[in-house]
């Protein structure tokens, strides 16, 4: 990876200070995880247990819905716009018999997996020198955001598996091919930031939409604690791209993925 190094007349002191702040930040981030795990555990003991019981009773009747299998990404092909791909799936639904909170959790996990993939691919491409010179701030952003998206995916998967369904290891099938196609066009840090911004906006919109349809307090809390973080990612990406970082007084649901658009499979 070709990373710009600061010159000595630029922030000779600040880098140290900022690194110290980052260490504090990482520590705080890690402190949040036990709380989230506890919240998920509460769900599993409550609504999740009830759902597992329900699933068990009617297990042999189930089998409808499309099951997405395997962890591999779909082959690159399809349209050139992620948002248009999102729009074309708005009317679709899985027809799954899973409770809406589980379906939403699976949908969210698949979106988070997609973000992890995109940031991972970006970091790999940058490391291989395929994206030109990458500023250090962009590297730090991508690395940290990827970690946080993995944490989000884990939180949703805990809810999904706690309710008696299979862990979601795939990326959102409706968007994956488009993201791959768009990623193939990325040539520099700016292109990577634009792609990431689109994914962050879709994730934030999906969570905002989900908050209006989720039923359990734990699922709503999970979505509510993640949506602002995706919004923060978007703010920093807007700043990186030279766009005003807080463009709207109210978050929007434009581009949201339908919460029922991922077929989750019973364990």
């Amino acid at each position, binding site marked *: 990876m070709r990373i*710009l190094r*600061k010159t000595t007349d*630029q*922030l000779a*002191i*600040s880098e140290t*200070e*900022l*690194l110290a*702040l*980052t260490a504090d*930040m990482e520590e*705080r*981030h890690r402190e*949040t*995880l*036990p709380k989230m795990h*506890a919240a998920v555990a509460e769900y599993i*003991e409550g609504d999740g247990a009830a759902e597992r019981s329900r699933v068990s009773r009617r297990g042999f009747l189930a089998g409808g819905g499309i099951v997405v299998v395997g962890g591999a990404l779909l082959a690159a092909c399809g349209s050139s716009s992620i948002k248009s791909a999102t729009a074309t799936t708005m009317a679709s639904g899985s027809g799954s018999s899973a409770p809406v909170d589980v379906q939403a959790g699976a949908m969210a996990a698949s979106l988070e997996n997609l973000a992890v993939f995109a940031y991972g691919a970006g970091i790999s491409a940058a490391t291989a020198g395929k994206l030109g*010179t990458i*500023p*250090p*701030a*962009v*590297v*730090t*952003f991508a690395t*940290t*955001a990827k*970690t946080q998206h993995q944490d*989000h995916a884990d939180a949703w998967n805990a809810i999904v598996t706690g309710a008696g369904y299979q862990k979601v290891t795939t990326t959102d099938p409706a968007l994956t091919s488009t993201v791959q196609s768009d990623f193939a066009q990325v040539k520099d840090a700016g292109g990577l930031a634009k792609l990431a911004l689109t994914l962050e906006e879709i994730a934030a919109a999906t969570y*905002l939409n989900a*908050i209006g349809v989720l039923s359990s*307090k*734990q699922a*709503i809390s999970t979505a*509510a604690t*993640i*949506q*602002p*973080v995706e*919004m*923060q990612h*978007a*703010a*920093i990406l807007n*700043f*990186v791209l*030279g*766009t*005003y*970082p*807080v*463009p*709207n*007084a*109210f*978050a*929007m*649901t434009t581009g949201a993925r339908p919460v029922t658009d991922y077929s989750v499979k019973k364990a």
Partner: protein
Amino acid sequence: MSVDEHALGELIEQSADLQADAMHQSTEALKEMVEVGHDRRRTGELDPEQDMAAATRRQELMRKSLLGAGTLAAAGFGAAVLGLFDTPAFADSATDIQMLQTAASLENLAVATYKTALTLPFIGGSSANGVVKAFATTTMAQHTQHGQAFNAAAQQLGGKAQNAADPKYAAVVQAAVPTIKGPSDVVRLAIKLETVAAETYVANASAYSDLNARKVTASIMGVEAQHVSILLAVQALLAANAPQLIALPPNLSALPGAAGSIGFPNAFYQTDMASPATEGAVS
């Protein structure tokens, strides 16, 4: 100051257009809330005093049950969850109204604080960084809209509008203002207010009984988190004595690596600083 004023103006104009679109969505949600509120009043469902008493009883039962079980405390999550129940969880119309009024009070305080800050030469005057000034101006306007949205929601559920500032944090601001010496002091204060607002709304999102109150709050909490994010980045650059890097577009190659992640310190938004429902409610 390294900012293209014309370009920034265009960006803010675009932002205003997007904001108008978002306002439309919010207005639709509020219209739904009006209908629900009217229905409830017509059918006699809404009795704030009765609702409040029932909510209090339920909260107390929940608290005893949770503490008795000890499971949450053992998991290290007890305080946070009980904080949510204080908000309270599974609220009703009366507590929904209180939460909305408290939210409005936090917004009122934010508006007043940014307004005061903009009178300072290093925030809104000739010596101010252009991006910081634009941020303070735009953010103040956004908080004004948030306050209006929360008050409309409270009124449509049968409550009164809250036009006063949150008393707890008004005192904090009042104590801080005389000590302000430069932009960093203002940014530190703004981070505190924005964090309290964001965390309060995150906590409240799962506590409302009214779906549209939840939706309105959810549409605002992420925006406050974005304010926090930008303020954290600005704070770090000011602390690093690099105000010239607070610019749009930024000099990406000159930004230190840590600047890329300073704005989102947690994978999950916290609620430790969330204000209780009654803090800014109309008495």
